[in-house]
């Protein structure tokens, strides 16, 4: 009698395992057919926004630079197609950059030259940026 009960339990467990294995394999095949839910959400038209997040950078000249010539070249990078205003006590320069980079020759006054470079991207989607540098034109010859 005990032997028969043991065989019945064994058969029951075995049947349960077989059913569970079949169900798991079916679920996996269904998931594979559908694809992963995470993958399904990825849009094929994702844009790289890094180019739009270009911050205003001035690569040349360095802040507090001491120079002995009457003008300097300002080079930098900002969001393309921006209105760039380069302002110093003696001259204002307006530029429009087709690329991210820009450059302009700025005349200097003898002594301290506070130069502000402001970048105004077109429209209201992005905010304006501003950088200030000081250049000392000291005629020490």
């Amino acid at each position, binding site marked *: 009698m005990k032997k028969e009960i043991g065989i019945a339990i064994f058969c029951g467990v075995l049947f349960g395992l077989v059913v569970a294995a079949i169900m798991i394999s079916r679920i996996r095949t269904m998931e594979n057919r559908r694809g992963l839910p995470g993958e399904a959400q990825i849009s094929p038209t994702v844009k790289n926004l890094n180019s739009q997040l270009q911050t205003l950078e001035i690569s040349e000249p360095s802040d*507090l630079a*001491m120079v002995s010539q009457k003008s300097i070249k300002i080079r930098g990078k900002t969001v393309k197609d921006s*209105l760039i*205003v380069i*302002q*110093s*006590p003696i001259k*204002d320069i*307006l*530029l*429009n950059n087709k690329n991210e980079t820009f450059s302009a020759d700025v005349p200097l*006054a*003898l*002594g*301290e030259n*506070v*130069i*502000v470079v*402001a970048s*105004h991207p*077109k*429209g*209201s989607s992005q905010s*304006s940026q*501003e950088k*200030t540098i*000081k250049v*000392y034109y*000291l*005629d*020490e010859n």
Partner: protein
Amino acid sequence: MKRTITSALILLFAFVVTTSAQVKTSTPSSSQNKDAEILKDKLESKVAELQKKEQKAVAGRVSDNKNKKIALTSDNGTLFEIRVDDVVTKLYDIAGGEKDEIKLDAIKKGDYVIASGPTSDRVVTANNVYRDEQFLVGSGNITEVNQAEGYLKVLTAEKENLILDIGITTKRFLADVKDLSEDVVALAKVKEGDTAHFVVKKTGKEREKNRYAATKILIIPQEYFHK
């Protein structure tokens, strides 16, 4: 005769030995001199290069001028000591655009001064000291246009409220963003919401905090930002 020949030979030997010794000692001394000169030149150029690297310009308001030392406070509050030497240091006034030599006692408390020279640990051994004018350059959003009193209130990106007095001498321009030109503009044409780029002269004796007489303003119309 034999003695004469012997003494002559001894003399000749002595002459040859001393001459050869002289040749031997003179040749390396001249090359050593050359090497020493090259080394000296190299050292001099290196020292000049290092001195040039250490040359800096600092600027600020004079807080004291005595005992050939000028105390200078920069815009960010850093205190510099400017050491003036009677022989080496040259002092100029460049405020009007011209460079005129001045005496040390002409530099008074409150003057805006630029000093250049070797700098070490906030001490400048000045080669040149220049008395200059200080300008403040910036931009901000116009929050108020007061035509009656002739001023603009501007809010800068640093959330600072400035009052810019617009006088007869103020150069006023409106930017034409299409052809990037500038047209002269009357205060009546300036609107709240426009962006003002400004240059003001900072005297340190302003009657009101954050209120300056504008030297120049350039207006970017707000329409540019709403396209």
